């Protein structure tokens, strides 16, 4: 009896870990797929899983419709703005094409200065001084460091953003925009994390300073947002299309593993950081084992609780503290 239940749970676990050939709202504008695929790929004869597939299909259909409606509305409003923008933007609420162009210009200058500043990081660290040197190289007076009031953190978050974008591009190429199925998702995750960490290698000497800046509470919102988007992207391209609580646990788990590996990476002196990649692989395997163990013991949690309670009551009786409270 217990064996059958264990098998049951293994099947459900497989469904969580392995990718399904489902489309998602992100790909809707690219290539909508027929829904028959979903039904053909259902694993168990479980009623629950069949319902889950239907539910997922319905939700994705709704999201696609919503996206199409949003795009149509945007096009309509753009046409209006294009006609009215010629009269000149007056209100501060209406972000006309002028404001967007100005903002784009400022953003381009900021990116240019920070990119030039990255070259000075190995000598100066993630500091305002690096930004000043970068600014002067780009042809701006040193006073423009005032555009980055957060100082070194602006540089760190720019670098992180750049690396994340680079990684996402590479993952997109590998999986053909998320459409191609990934054979070994675990290995895919390991490779993605490894690729991301290898981008940090040129700045390894000052990376502890960067991690300290990321940990500061005033920068927590930006830092957290970047990590979570990165982890979400990696999980998505590895084929995760789950809609249950496992969505959260997987991403948080991956973020934890990434942080641990990053810390190990800082003090790793082996050639090509081979030990770090071993560490990463071990952590990933442990995480999978932990998840399997947790799902297996799901039914036994009650038994554990009751036996713990009885042990506690026995101990209390032995000590003479137990008495009838009724």
């Amino acid at each position, binding site marked *: 009896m217990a064996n059958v239940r264990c098998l049951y749970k293994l099947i459900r676990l497989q469904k969580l870990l392995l990718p399904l050939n489902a489309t998602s709202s992100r790909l809707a504008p690219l290539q909508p797929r027929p829904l028959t695929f979903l039904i053909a790929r259902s694993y168990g004869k479980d009623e629950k899983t069949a319902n889950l597939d239907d539910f997922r299909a319905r939700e994705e259909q709704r999201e696609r419709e919503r996206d199409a409606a949003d795009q149509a509305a945007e096009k309509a409003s753009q046409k209006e703005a294009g006609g009215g923008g010629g009269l000149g933007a007056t209100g*501060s609420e209406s972000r006309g094409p002028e404001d967007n162009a*100005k903002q784009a*210009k*400022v953003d381009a*200058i900021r990116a240019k200065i920070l990119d030039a500043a990255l070259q000075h990081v190995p000598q100066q660290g993630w500091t*305002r001084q690096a930004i*000043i040197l970068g*600014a002067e190289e780009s*042809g*701006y*007076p*040193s*006073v*423009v*460091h*005032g*555009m980055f*009031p957060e100082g070194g953190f602006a540089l760190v978050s720019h670098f992180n953003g750049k690396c994340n974008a680079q990684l996402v591009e590479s993952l997109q190429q590998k999986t053909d925009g998320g459409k191609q199925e990934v054979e070994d998702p675990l290995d895919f995750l390991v490779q993605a994390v490894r690729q991301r960490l290898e981008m940090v290698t040129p700045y390894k000497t000052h990376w502890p300073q960067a991690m300290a800046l990321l940990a500061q509470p005033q920068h927590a919102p930006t830092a957290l947002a970047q990590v979570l988007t990165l982890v979400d992207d990696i999980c998505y391209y590895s084929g995760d299309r789950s809609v249950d609580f496992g969505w959260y646990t997987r991403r948080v788990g991956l973020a934890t593993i990434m942080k641990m590996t990053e810390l190990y990476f800082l003090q790793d002196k082996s050639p090509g950081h081979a030990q770090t990649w071993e560490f990463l692989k071990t952590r990933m395997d442990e995480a999978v084992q932990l998840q399997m163990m947790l799902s297996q013991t799901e039914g036994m949690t009650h038994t554990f609780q009751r036996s713990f309670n009885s042990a506690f009551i026995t101990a209390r009786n032995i000590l003479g503290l137990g008495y009838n409270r009724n």
Partner: protein
Amino acid sequence: MQSTRSTRLLSLARRFVHTRTAAQSTRNSKGMGSGAEFTSGKEQTTHFGFQTVRESEKEQKVHEVFEQVANSYDVMNDAMSLGIHRLWKDVFVERLGPTHGMRLLDMAGGTGDITFRYLRYLNNQPNPQQRPSHVTVSDINQHMLNVGEERAKRLGLTTDQLSNCTVAWQCADAEKLPFPDASFTAYTIAFGIRNCTHVDKVLSEAYRVLQPGGRFMCLEFSHLTNETMQWLYDQYSFQVIPPMGQLLAGQWQAYQYLVESIRRFPKQEQFKQMIEQAGFDQVSYENLTFGVVSIHSGFKL
């Protein structure tokens, strides 16, 4: 009998004409003008505190105010703001973040508070490449500049006594600067812009003399974010400051003008838009002490 009546009528008529012309002139000088309006004359009017004066008069009146207060300016600043103005100016220079090689124009610099902080900040920074910096202190009132120069000598912050930094003292009108285009990398104006007749001209002149990438920074009294605190601040401003001015400096009217001119200055958001209209990018402002003063900053990109 007839002659007395006619003379009485004549004198009445004369008095009537006099009062009419007098009333017209008072209506011109004390009115509810908000900004510039057209009068029967050719010139526009502007605000001088809560009065309305002709634009040509305002400059003269402001000049008189500062001529009278120059000697006790620093003492009165300390008394009015309970010394907090030193913190505001410290934060202001910290936000600017002076670096070696900077060329600063300290407009309405007068007695030199911002300049001395700038020079001290640079002194505390290492200068391995020995890059020269420069600061020009400028004010429309020569008397204020004289006070500043004396202070500089006393503090040891003149060109001769500093290494790698030159200090120049120049009397100039913020609306018509005598400097060539793109000759400074930073422009600061602390507690001076509300005294200018045409703020937009000041902003466009600032844009002109700044190099591409240069920074405009303005420290100015502004409007509080909280209604109750604004009321408290008003009570303090109007009931305490002019009498204090009379006691410490012998000047009631000058300090009456001061607190009134603070109220007439545009609010933070409006001033930010004015700076953007002058051509500056990434304009932002930071309130200090709940909005009693505000630091506006913009870049010429």
